[in-house]
C-alpha cells in the first residue's frame, strides 16, 4: 500500500485574508441579542427614574422632588421601615433554616434523596406564588391547620388571627424565599471539601465543633449571598402581600402598585420604585464587598 500518498496535499481551504476583529467587538456582538432585552430593563429603570421627578399630570416635562418629599411623610416612612424590617427578619430566619438543609444537600450520597431534596427546594421557588398563597390560607385561616391544632391542644379558645397581618406575611415571605437561601449555601458547602472535616475530626473536634468551626466559616460567602438574595427578593415582594397581607401590611411594593392602580399617581409610584431599586442595589453591593473580601482570604489560604 502506497502510504506515501497519505501526505499529499488535497483540498486545502483557500487562503483568505484574515478578518481582524477585535476580541472586544466580537464578544459584544455575541452579547448584543441578550443586551437588547437587558437594554429594555435599563431603559425602563431610567424611565422610572425620570418619572419619579416628574409631577402628576406632567410626568414627562415637569420637575419636582415632591414625590420623594412625600416619601418622608410618617405614613410612607413607616412603610419603608416596615419593608426593611420584614425583609431583614425574613432573611435571617430563612438563612437559619437553610443552613441545615444546605449542609444535607451538599453531603447527600443517594441520588434519589438528592433529587427529592432538590425538588422540595425548587417547588416553593418555581411554583406560582399565587398557588402557594392558597396553601397558606388553608394553613393560617381561622379554621385552618394551625388554629385547629392550637385549639385541639387547648392552648387557645378561639381562632387567632394569623392572616392579613405581619405574622402571616412574615411566614409567607420566609417560605417563598427560602430556596434562594438554600441554593447558594448548598453550593458553598459543596465547595468545602470533606477532607477539611476529616482533618478537623482527626484533630479532635466533635461533629458539632467541626460544623461550627470549619464548615460554617468556610461557607460564609454562600451564607451571606443567600441572606442578601432573600432580603432583596422580599424587600420588593408583592404577591405574598397581596394575598396574605390583604393590603393591610403596607410594604413598599404594595404602595408602588396602589399609587398606579387606584390613584394613577405615576411620579409617586416611580419614586417608591426608585427607593426599592436603590435599597436592593445597595444591599447587593455591600454583600458583594463583604463576600468578595472573605472569598479572597479563603482563596489566598488554599
Amino acid at each position, binding site marked *: 500500500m502506497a502510504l506515501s500518498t497519505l501526505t499529499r496535499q488535497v483540498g486545502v481551504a483557500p487562503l483568505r485574508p484574515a478578518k481582524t476583529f477585535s476580541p*472586544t467587538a466580537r464578544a459584544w456582538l455575541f452579547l448584543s441579542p441578550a443586551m437588547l432585552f437587558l437594554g429594555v430593563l435599563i431603559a425602563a429603570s431610567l424611565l422610572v427614574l425620570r418619572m419619579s421627578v416628574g409631577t402628576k399630570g406632567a410626568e414627562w416635562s415637569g420637575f419636582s422632588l415632591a414625590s420623594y418629599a412625600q416619601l418622608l411623610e410618617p405614613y410612607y416612612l413607616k412603610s419603608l421601615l416596615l419593608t426593611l424590617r420584614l425583609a431583614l427578619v425574613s432573611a435571617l430566619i430563612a438563612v437559619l433554616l437553610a443552613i441545615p*438543609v444546605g449542609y444535607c444537600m451538599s453531603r447527600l450520597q443517594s441520588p434519589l434523596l438528592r433529587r427529592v431534596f432538590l425538588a422540595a427546594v425548587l417547588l416553593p421557588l418555581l411554583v406560582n406564588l399565587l398557588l402557594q398563597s392558597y396553601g397558606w390560607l388553608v394553613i393560617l385561616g381561622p379554621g385552618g391547620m394551625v388554629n385547629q391544632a392550637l385549639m385541639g391542644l387547648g392552648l387557645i379558645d378561639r381562632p387567632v388571627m394569623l392572616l392579613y397581618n405581619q405574622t402571616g406575611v412574615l411566614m409567607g415571605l420566609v417560605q417563598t424565599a427560602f430556596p434562594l437561601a438554600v441554593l447558594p449555601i448548598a453550593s458553598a458547602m459543596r465547595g468545602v471539601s470533606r477532607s477539611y472535616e476529616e482533618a478537623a475530626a482527626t484533630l479532635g473536634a466533635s461533629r458539632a465543633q467541626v460544623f461550627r468551626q470549619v464548615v460554617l466559616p468556610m461557607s460564609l460567602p454562600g451564607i451571606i449571598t443567600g441572606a442578601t*438574595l432573600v432580603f432583596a427578593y422580599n424587600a420588593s415582594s408583592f404577591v405574598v402581600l397581596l394575598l396574605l397581607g390583604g393590603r393591610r401590611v403596607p410594604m413598599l411594593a404594595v404602595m408602588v402598585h396602589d399609587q398606579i392602580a387606584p390613584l394613577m399617581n405615576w411620579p409617586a409610584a416611580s419614586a417608591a420604585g426608585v427607593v426599592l431599586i436603590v435599597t436592593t442595589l445597595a444591599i447587593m453591593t455591600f454583600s458583594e464587598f463583604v463576600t468578595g473580601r472573605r472569598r479572597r482570604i479563603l482563596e489566598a489560604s488554599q
Partner: protein
Amino acid sequence: MSSPLKSLLRAAAPLPGETGRFAMGLSGFILLLAVLPILSMIVMSFSGASNLDFPPASYSLQWYKAAWNTFVSPDASDVLSLGQALTTSLLVATLSMLFATLVAVPAAYALVRCEFRGKAVALQLMSLPLVFPMVVLGLALLLIFDNLPFQLSTSRLVIAHVILALPFVVKNCTAAMLSIGNEVEEAAQMLGASPLRAIVDVVVPLMRSGILAGMLLAFIISFNEFTVTYFLYNIDVMTVPIWMYSRTVSSLDPTVFSFAVLIVLIDFALIWALEKLVGDGGVSF
C-alpha cells in the same frame, strides 16, 4: 449496655463529612414546612366541604367536577375562559423559552470564551434581573409599553418573561460551556472549521443538556410568573395565574384549588425532568 447493641450504635455513627441523623431529620422537617402550603392545597382540593377548615370534614371530587364544568362550558360571567388563558400561557411560555435560549447561548459563549473589556459589567448586567425588584420592573415596562406609538399585546409579556428568565438560562449555558473546555473547539478549528462552524458543529451539540435545562427553567418561570404579568396584562391577554387571581379576588372558590393542583402537577413534572438533567450535570442555579 450489651456489646452487640454497642457495635450497632458505633456502626451507625456517621463518619466526618457524612450527614448525621439529626441533621437529616431537621432538614427533612424544614423542607416539609417549605412545601407544606403546596401539600395542604392539594389536600384541600379533595375537600367535600365548602369552607377552608383543615382537615376537611369529608373528601370528594366535587371541586374537580366543578372545575371540569368551568373548563368545558365557561360561565358567561367569566370575562375570559380558562382555555384561552391556558393557550396564552403556553404560547407566552414557549416563545419566552425560545427567545431566552436563542439570546443566552451566544451570550454565554462570549462570557466564557472571550476576554474583553467590560466583561465585569456584562456579568453584572446578566444577573441584574435576578435582584431587580419585580414590582418596579412591572411598573417600568408598563410605562414603556403604554408610551410606545404602537400596541403590543402578547409580545409584551414575552419580553418581560425573557428578561426574567435570562439569568437562569445564561447561568446554565455558561456552566455547560465551562464543562466542555476549549480544546474540542480548537480541535475543530485545527481540522479546518471556521470559528463559527466550530461553534455550530461542536460546541452547541455538546452543550445540549445545559441548553435543555435552561429552556425548561425558562418555560417554568414564564408559566408561573405572576407579579410582572399582573402589571402588564389586559383583558385580551391573560395568563393562567392572572385568570386564577381574577377569579379569587373577591372570594376563594375551591374550584381554583383543583386548577392549582393541575398546575402544580405540570410544574412538578417539569422540575423532575429538569433534575434528570441535573444528574447529567446539566443544570445549575
